[in-house]
């Protein structure tokens, strides 16, 4: 609700009347415990051909505001204030009239392309449906127009694709279909609710390019709802930042991203993990201080992103800017900038707590690990996994030394999660060997494997579904301890309390059920459960990608701290290069079941030798509009 109107925005655009204007829009819900406010006095406007980003974390009311525009909220919602589309009031509009506007004047794109299309109808049918409804086209005409639309959004073999079902298309293609559907009737306003969040970065870049292109060509106004500051920098003209149902800041994209006026915006920016901030510091501390200090959106940092265009990025390791503070791994999280340089990266991160014997990482770590006192925590050799004659994983070898954190990076379908499942003994490889802490677990029966499971554990992506909803979190954490008969009675209670506290949860929370916790808290519980038996190896499969950025920052910081204290080795699976850079000493990049590149994290990210790594780096958006523009031009 801040005051500054977007005066600095577009000089020429300022004269154009806004097509959509929200004034003092509030949404509330009637619940059994009385009314609950979702948003209070939200106001912003969008002009034709403009992209307005509405930024905020979950619960900020950004999606609710958008849904209220189309009257798509459940009947328990009450909307007050005003929202006008080309001068026509939407709040309180009769359902019949609203229906005529939906998909016609205001269209919407949703986050989940996998579930947003109806699985039992063909793509062409679902597209044609809009045209038949709003434009009164005949079946044949609708089909012809649908084909044109599919071509417009860049789907190859459009005519054939009309008869495809959603499950026959990839996530990116489905989102293109959603976009085609949304622009079918040339809407004045396109509301895109996290349109690229569920997509891989390379696909995300394509979809954002498409949206920008459509916006320019068709003159559509786009309201882009997102949590991702990189996406904002890439596509938005103006930004509205929301928190707890209120607008806290608004302005031109450059101003908001480079000189945020509101503290919350600064915090949000600081929490965004981005490249050029290597491991051991942990993501930006919660306070706004970090945003102003070392970490500004980093146009200055040597971005390896521009890849091929720039011949050779400097030899400087990204983030080694301040060599003065070279106290490896001791600093309080979020305090200084303890940097681990190239060679340092090879030494185990565990300095206090359990001393870790040096491990044979100095040489080619992917290869020989024979003559040592401590066997590697995880050794995958020539791993092959086939499903129905399709090779999901082809001859992958990864070694994680004791106490070492190794990143496994790739996009969806790269086979990275399958590798993780093999390492956790949840999936039997077609060939190759899996050794955990020196034991070959490749062919062990479930019964023989069980006692060995003490040595390794796994944390999954979705904390909501990986905790049993019928068990208290205390019971969930205690279960592995009970199963392995480690402790019981008072000892067990104490251990659970200790574990809860180690993940910064109060010990008395053990009686809570998962649904009573937030996403971040649930993931903390998952981590506590995984660490209950003090495993030698933790496999973390995208543990933070379902979380809000500021929550992710906290969980990652906790993870770094725990890893340092307990000294477990970790295979960290992620699609996010920035997160991997922050946590790992070594990284392997996977594509289509193969490792295309591996090595010390700093070196791989600074001087990627494989084009795919370069493409990945270039596609991950950074919260800097100028940098994004540079990359866009490089892409085009």
């Amino acid at each position, binding site marked *: 609700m801040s005051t500054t109107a977007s005066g600095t925005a577009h000089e020429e655009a300022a004269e154009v009347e806004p097509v959509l204007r929200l004034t003092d829009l509030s949404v509330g819900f009637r619940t059994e415990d009385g009314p609950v406010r979702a948003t209070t006095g939200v106001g912003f406007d969008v002009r034709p051909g403009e992209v307005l980003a509405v930024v905020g974390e979950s619960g900020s009311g950004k999606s609710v505001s958008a849904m209220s525009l189309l009257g*798509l909220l459940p009947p328990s919602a009450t909307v007050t204030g005003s929202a006008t589309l080309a001068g026509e009031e939407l709040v309180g509009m009769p359902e019949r009239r609203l229906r005529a506007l*939906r998909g016609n004047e205001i269209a919407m794109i949703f986050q989940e392309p996998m*579930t947003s299309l109806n699985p039992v109808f063909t793509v062409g049918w679902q597209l044609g*449906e809009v045209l038949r*409804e709003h434009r009164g086209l005949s079946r044949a005409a609708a089909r012809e127009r649908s084909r044109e639309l599919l071509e417009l959004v860049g789907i190859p073999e459009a005519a054939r694709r009309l008869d495809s079902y959603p499950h026959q*298309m990839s996530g990116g293609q489905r989102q293109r279909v959603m976009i085609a*559907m949304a622009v079918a009737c040339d809407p004045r306003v396109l509301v895109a609710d996290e349109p690229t969040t569920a997509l891989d970065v390379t696909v995300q870049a394509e979809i954002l390019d498409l949206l920008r292109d459509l916006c320019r060509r068709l003159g559509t106004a786009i309201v882009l709802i997102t949590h991702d500051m990189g996406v904002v920098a890439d596509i938005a003209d103006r930004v509205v930042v929301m928190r707890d149902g209120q607008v806290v800041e608004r302005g031109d994209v450059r101003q908001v991203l480079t000189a945020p006026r509101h503290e919350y915006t600064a915090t949000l920016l600081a929490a965004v993990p981005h490249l050029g901030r290597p491991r051991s510091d942990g993501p930006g501390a919660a306070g706004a201080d970090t945003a102003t200090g070392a970490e500004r959106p980093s146009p200055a940092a040597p971005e390896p992103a521009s890849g091929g265009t720039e011949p050779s990025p400097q030899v400087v390791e990204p983030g080694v800017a301040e060599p003065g503070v070279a106290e490896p791994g001791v600093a309080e999280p979020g305090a200084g900038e303890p940097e681990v340089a190239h060679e340092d990266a090879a030494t185990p991160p565990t300095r206090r707590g359990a001393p870790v014997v040096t491990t044979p990482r100095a040489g080619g770590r992917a290869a020989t690990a024979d003559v040592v006192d401590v066997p590697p925590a995880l050794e995958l050799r020539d791993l092959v996994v086939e499903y129905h004659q399709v090779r999901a994983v082809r001859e992958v070898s990864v070694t994680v030394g004791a106490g070492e954190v190794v990143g496994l990076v790739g996009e969806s379908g790269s086979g990275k999660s399958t590798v993780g499942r093999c390492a956790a003994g949840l999936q039997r490889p077609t060939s190759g060997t899996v050794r955990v802490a020196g034991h070959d677990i490749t062919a062990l029966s479930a019964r023989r494997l069980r006692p060995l499971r003490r040595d390794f554990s796994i944390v999954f992506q979705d904390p909501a579904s990986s905790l049993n909803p019928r068990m208290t979190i205390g019971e969930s954490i205690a279960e592995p301890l009970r199963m392995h008969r480690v402790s019981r009675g008072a000892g067990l209670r104490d251990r659970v309390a200790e574990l809860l506290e180690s993940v910064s949860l109060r010990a008395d929370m053990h009686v809570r059920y998962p649904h009573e916790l937030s996403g971040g808290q649930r993931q903390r519980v998952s981590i506590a459960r995984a660490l209950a038996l003090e495993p030698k190896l933790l496999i973390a499969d995208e543990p933070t990608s379902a979380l809000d950025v500021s929550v992710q920052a906290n969980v990652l910081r906790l993870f770094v701290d725990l890893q340092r204290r307990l000294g477990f080795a970790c295979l960290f699976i992620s699609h996010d290069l920035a997160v991997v850079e922050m946590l790992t000493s070594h990284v392997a990049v996977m594509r289509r079941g193969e490792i295309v590149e591996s090595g010390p994290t700093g070196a791989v990210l600074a001087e990627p030798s494989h084009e795919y790594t370069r493409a990945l780096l270039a596609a991950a958006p950074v919260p800097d509009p100028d940098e994004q523009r540079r990359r866009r031009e490089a892409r085009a």
Partner: protein
Amino acid sequence: MGRYLLNRLLQSLVTLFLVSVVIFAGVRAMPGDPALLLAGDDPSPETVAAINEQYGFDRAWPLQYLTWIGQMLRWDFGESIRTGMPVSETILTRLPATLELAALSLLVAALVGVLAGVAAAVRQGRPTDWLANGVALLGLSVPNFWLGLMGILVFAVALGWLPASGYVPFFESPAGNLASMVMPAIVLGTGLAAIILRQTRSSMIEALSSDYVRTARAKGMTPRRVVAHALRNSLITVLTILGLQLGALISGTVVTEQIFVLPGFGRLMVESVFTRDFPVIQATVMVTAVGYILVNLVVDLLYSVVDPRIRVQGGAR
């Protein structure tokens, strides 16, 4: 698709084989001489000898089994001990009434169940929903025979609108046939209708809150079209329940045919059990099993009609 069909057919054959083994073993596991058992009460030595010869009880079991299967494949189930008629003929005369009864009650159940289920889901938590759920509970808790008797009392005895019992073949008098079948079909279909209603309601409620329904609403579709989007998806789960519940429907025909005195397959079963008419019991059980397997095969094929994810293999990546 072709592979899927082949797979299901093979599975059905395995099931059929197991059923036949159970029936075969069942008769042989009975105490005493199977020939004596099959011959019924107080048989003459000639009958026993004839049965022994017909079934080859003196030969090795695998051979006996194969002979029996071979006979069945040639639609030869032996003769009824009670009537002396070929069992195959008896079955053929008894089947039409039962098939008609089952089909009609299935129709009634599906129509009522799906429509009421959709209405309840769309108006979730409102009077329509309450009413539908209440009636469904009633339909589930009232036993068939009582409902049948009440029906006869009201519509046949008191009002005289419908015949109380008996069966008129369709080709003799279509109107009379329908009049004689209306009440049995409704009585038998009630329980199934209630189950379908509950299933439709719950899967519709789930579908209505799905992302694709939100998309349909955001596209500006009319409520009818939105429901259509959800219904096609809900039918997938409803079909499963339908397939599973057909067993209950088949056993329900036994009771219903007794009440309305229909000359059907169910009554034939009951009669044969009471008279220990083993050839008939063997045959009816086998035919029932085949029918059940066929129906489930059809249900599985219907899946692929409703759900393209089964029909069309993916292949985008």
